[in-house]
């Protein structure tokens, strides 16, 4: 049986990864990710795990090194944040194109400029189209569970794609939370050894990253898209298996008091818990409000989103990033496009908030719902607004 412990979430993530029999980790420090790297390096140095830890000279090198290691058949891990993730950007589509099951934690942090070290989602959003499986977690327990499951999903023979686990920087990484840490025996029973689909080996040479001109390029892109779409089945299976083994179940789209709601709010990541408290307050006042939490960002859970939003009249989509000069927040634009062909769809309001670590309190979520309900002429629907901004 797993142990109930209290620990800083970043450290716990490293502990969880340490249970996964990794072969190598290559990490460059960056706040608020660094505690993951430091703790992993401790586990390696103390001989607690039989793996290599490489102190590379940048994130570009970190991702390159895990690509190299994964290509040689090693279970490989890295973690980063913000500028570090931006600097890795070039390598991300290469990892997915080579079908390398790398896993990575992202301690989400605002991207410069101006320089800021606090939490939002402006680092992960520009990586959306890199061909990675991408999940968001709401609390420490989920961070641990998703970090372990990431290996099983990534390495499944029907997937063979890299996975990133998004953990809100500071808001989650630096919190000391109570949770259940699976035991080594449990993780060993859950996670089979890594069997690579192809490795660089002199006895059976393969070439990874070969040149492809217009004759094959499109087909390769389509194959990657199909692989990512098809990964959803495996993701759901692995999450189910986890639920059976550990009693904690995860769905691509989670709801809270949504069934009879007149207005729904949608969040990603750690804001879900705050928003949930707001829903309780609103319900206490007799307002029929509910919550939708989007956990799986890529592959995008179209059918689940449509099912959950089928009957609601008004929807508030919250975004912690913006597509400048575009349609508003990235989550907003994805949800809108998912619902475009539906016969009945809600009016959608988009609030962009919590940028660069700005706190969003329970009352502010309540305020958003009140504001949307007061918009009886639906004037603000289909547009976006920076919530709480000073003009």
């Amino acid at each position, binding site marked *: 049986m797993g142990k109930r412990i209290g620990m800083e979430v970043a450290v716990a993530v490293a502990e969880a990864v340490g249970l996964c029999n990794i072969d190598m980790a290559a*990490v*460059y*420090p*960056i*706040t608020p990710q*660094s505690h993951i*790297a*430091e703790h992993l*390096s*401790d586990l390696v*140095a*103390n001989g607690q795990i039989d793996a290599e*830890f490489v*102190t590379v*000279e*940048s*994130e570009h090198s970190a991702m390159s090194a895990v690509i190299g290691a994964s290509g040689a058949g090693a279970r490989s891990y890295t973690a980063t944040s913000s*500028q570090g993730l931006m*600097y890795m950007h070039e390598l991300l589509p290469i990892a997915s194109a080579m079908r390398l099951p790398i896993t990575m934690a992202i301690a989400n942090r605002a991207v*410069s400029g101006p*320089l800021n070290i606090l939490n939002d989602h402006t680092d992960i959003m520009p990586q959306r189209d890199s061909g990675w499986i991408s999940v968001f977690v709401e609390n420490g327990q989920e961070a641990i569970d998703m970090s372990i499951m990431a290996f099983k999903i990534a390495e499944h023979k029907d997937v063979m794609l890299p996975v990133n686990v998004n953990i809100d920087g500071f808001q989650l990484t630096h919190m000391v939370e109570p949770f259940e840490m699976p035991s080594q025996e449990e993780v060993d029973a859950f996670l089979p050894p890594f069997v690579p689909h192809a490795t660089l080996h002199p006895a059976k040479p393969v070439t990874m990253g070969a040149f492809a001109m217009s004759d094959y390029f499109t087909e390769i892109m389509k194959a990657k898209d199909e692989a990512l779409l098809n990964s959803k089945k495996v993701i759901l299976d692995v999450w189910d298996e986890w639920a059976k083994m550990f009693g904690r179940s995860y769905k691509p789209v989670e709801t809270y008091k949504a069934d009879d709601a007149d207005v729904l709010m949608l969040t990603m990541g750690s804001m879900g818990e705050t928003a949930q408290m707001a829903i309780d307050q609103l319900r206490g006042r007799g307002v029929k409000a509910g919550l939708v939490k989007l956990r799986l960002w890529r592959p995008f859970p179209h059918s689940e989103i449509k099912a959950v939003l089928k009957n609601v009249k008004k929807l508030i989509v919250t975004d912690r990033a913006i597509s400048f000069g575009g349609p508003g927040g990235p989550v907003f634009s994805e949800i809108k496009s998912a619902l475009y062909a539906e016969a009945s769809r809600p009016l959608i309001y988009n609030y962009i908030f919590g940028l660069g670590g700005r706190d969003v309190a329970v009352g502010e979520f309540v305020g958003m719902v009140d504001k949307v309900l007061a918009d009886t002429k639906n004037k603000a629907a289909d547009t976006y607004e920076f919530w709480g901004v000073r003009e």
Partner: protein
Amino acid sequence: MTTAKAVKNVPPHPMDALLRTERIPHIWCPGCGIGTVFSAVLAAIKNTGWDPNTIAMVSGIGCTGRMAGYIRLDSFHTTHGRALPFATGLKLAKPDTKVIIVSGDGDLFAIGGNHFIHAARRNMDMTVVCVNNFNYGMTGGQQAPSTPLGAKTTTSVNGSPEEPFNLCDLAATCGATYVARWTAMQVRSLRSSISEALEKRGFSFVEVITPCPSSFGRRNRMGTALEMMKFYQGRSVIRSDINPSEALVDIDREIVVGKFVDTERPTFMDHYAKVNRLNLPQWRAMHSDHQKGR
């Protein structure tokens, strides 16, 4: 880190004219050697007597990089590792500017190492002052390419298994025309080396062995900030004009300090002007008007 806000009733600092006093107190830890290096840089700048409007400071990211935010001169606080490319662009656009780069060992030689070797190779006419505290101070003291073999950091609890760069040797090999190293305690020599480096026509490099008591010092049980200062100074041996490859930094035995290179060769601009048979563009008058107005 503390949030900068104006402090009242503090006696003026001799370098106040060059400081954005409204941003003080700074974020540096008590006893950190960066402040000493910053003072030396400011004093050297003051010594030159140059018009402040002709000087720009460029820094990368890190504790050291914060200098660019505190100096009352044109300054660029860039991204981690990219101070030298920003500085190169600045120099090309405005060739008369005296460009001084201040940054950490990690910023200049880990993530930004590539740019350092090329700026030195091209002999860009600029001065680089590197605060070498043997680790990534800002992010909590992890192992860097300057960490001595066997030294402890937050990502090498049993000691670093890698050999570090000899930064002065690297600079010299890549073509720097002025190379010196001092410890942060040797303030007078440091100040005069930075002055010489600033006056030098070509790529000049000054390395400063600097205490980071909060991270490197604590991990390696080096005592208080002052003890660390004295330790580095005590280990230092002045051996100017020896081959930089022999100017070792061995914190267990000796830290060779001094001026190792002081030569001349054509700068990037010299070659560029010749090859393109052009005079480099004059900085537009518009800019001077803008400066007068501020």
